[in-house]
């Protein structure tokens, strides 16, 4: 399950296709203060990028794989330094 909720933390994992934009949007609409962890994400469809840009949740971790990380860092706000 690429979009999962654990407490107030939304985890995006694996390859997130366009359909995942809907559950992600729902979770953020229910509670916009939820944070997002993308560390185990392999690919993010542009539809999810749009949701993340519009909702602007706190991003706790960008994806680990470097090529994707380079992309998400360019188009999404940076994660806070820990």
């Amino acid at each position, binding site marked *: 399950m690429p979009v999962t909720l654990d407490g107030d933390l939304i985890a995006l994992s694996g390859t997130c296709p*366009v359909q995942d934009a809907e559950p*992600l*949007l729902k979770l953020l609409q229910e509670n916009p203060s939820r944070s997002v962890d993308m560390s185990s994400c392999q690919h993010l469809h542009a539809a999810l990028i749009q949701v993340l*840009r*519009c909702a602007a949740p706190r991003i706790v971790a960008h994806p680990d794989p470097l090529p994707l990380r380079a992309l998400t860092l*360019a188009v999404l706000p940076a994660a806070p330094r820990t």
Partner: protein
Amino acid sequence: MTELRTEFVDECREYLVAASEALLQFEEDADRAALHEVFRSVHTIKGAAGLFEIPALTTVTHAAEDLLNTVREGEQDLHPALADALLAALDQVGAWVDHFEQHPTLPDDATDRAEALAVHIRSLAAAPPPQADASAPTPRSAPPGWLEAVSPDDRQRLATSLRHRPGRTLFAVTYTPDAHCFFSGGDPMLVVADVPGREWLRAEPRTPWPSLVDLDPFICVLDFQLLAFTTAEALEDVFLYAEDEVSWTPVALHDLVEPDDEPPTEQVQVVQPEPAPPPVAEPTPSTDPPEPPTERRGSHRSLKVEVERIDALMDLTGELTVAKNALPFLARKAAAHTDGQALSREILEQHARIHRLCEEFQAAVMRLRMMAVGTVFSRLPRLVRDLSRKQSKPVRLELSGEETEADKTVVESLGEALVHLVRNAIDHGIEPLAERRAAGKPEEGTLRLSATSTSDEVCITLADDGRGIDQDAVVARAIERGVLSAADAPGLSRQEALHLIFSPGLSTAAAVTDVSGRGVGMDAVRAMVHRNRGTITVDSEPGVGTTITFRLPLSMAVSHILVVDSDGQPFGLPMEAVRETLKVARTDIQTIRGEAVLTLREQTMPLLYLRSLLDQPARPDATHDYVVVLHIHGSPIALAVDRLFEGMDVVVKPLAGVMEGLSAYRGTTMLGDGQVLLILDIAELIRCR
């Protein structure tokens, strides 16, 4: 057939048409955009074919795609043999698609055919060695405004890279994905990730973000801006399927930093630097798929209609309901025995309102059925190309007025007739190369096909600059074939003589090809025009060319008729044949060789009595006749009737049952008082005389 299959079949047909059109265009003017279009179409068909168990179709499209790729990469030119092979592949795919529409699989021989085609195509693809591509990237336009948004640090970094690696080009790429691209499986993130040498990236919404509840995540509103050290070729590859959504331009050093090497002191943070964002659908909370594209490329089973035209019908439905609701109110008034005069006036007013709505409704429904004639024109360039190659006669086809619209039935029936006419023009009209040279004509023959429309007619003209029709030969042949009596021949007008080419007796290739240079299928053309209640004229100048013009009613459903009286019985005459009406004294009617004729403005024409055509008793005591002048097959004919009534718009119902075979009647319609009116087909009536 499942919906997916239907969609696949319809889509394939569209892409096949698009591919062959673009291929012909590329062959003509080497337009790169057309080549990309061919490539895209073939690629899309291949992709869609993957959804079904039709490997043969995939094999052929795959081979075609490979061949196209060699052309695209500049490894070889699209010479005619290549184009032939590609067109043959498209034809084969078209035939399989037709088969697949009716059957669960492709024909049994499909695999063998596919292999043969693929081997042939591959042999062509492998032929020439690749050439070195030394083309330098050319600047496309000024640097985009969003460069301002690159931070000073990034500018310095990129400027340093540029300075130290002078051989490389930094491209500024502006990528505006289609708002509905997600629905067709597009993912701009994947595209962006594929850009090689990416140095800087930004994604910006086209309009400010809506509130989270209003966001439609499936409408793409992101624009991407990139800076990358790459080549124009590489970018062309990455954006192959999004070329309309992207633009790029090389960035010069001075675009990044001031010429004095100082970093810009002032940074302007531009949030929306796009000069002119393209219009985008407002994000809506609905997740409905987007409206289908409203093009009208014809599939024979379905009709694509612009949404506005349906909306117009919706509005009318509303108005009609309002008008209907007024009737019970009137009925109550009538029941209460109110003033009859006032009631009658109100009913008439209501009638006028409903009448207006009926007319608008009718017009709106007609508009639904309107199709551009371009849909049938589009198959002709291919035909011209093939015939021209086969007969080694260079022929140019010039099309105009493709956007002219007519009723779907009319447009579809045009197709076959145009094929006959174009074929004839090239087979027999356009002279062989040597003959043209000898006559001092340009070597390339020209066919001009144009469409224009008036308020109620569409006029199609096909003109060639060939050798023209030998009028005497046609007349001689007609006499030989028994279509014309030798005695009548000298009296024929030029129009009448040329019109003989449409006679059924002259319509076989063997009968006419050698003499007149015309004939194949001319009878079929005449039949089509006649079926559509149109007229056809032919004009030809020996040595200069032939022009064939046909006029067809824009719409089939409603016809305009003139009502006349013959022996106390009303008949309808199709208005399109009527040129004028007049009252003629019997003394003005002359007799030549036992036939009545009427001379009008120095033109003598045969005069026929409708009563005698219909086997009704004559009116010997009459001093005057009412005469309708009709144009039949390009010649005037005077038709004498007892009385003339008004013209009216009617919906003609074809004859059915035992009367079906009576060609002298075009059909029937119901008059307001319930009487049935027979509509006459005068041309047929005269022919049956």
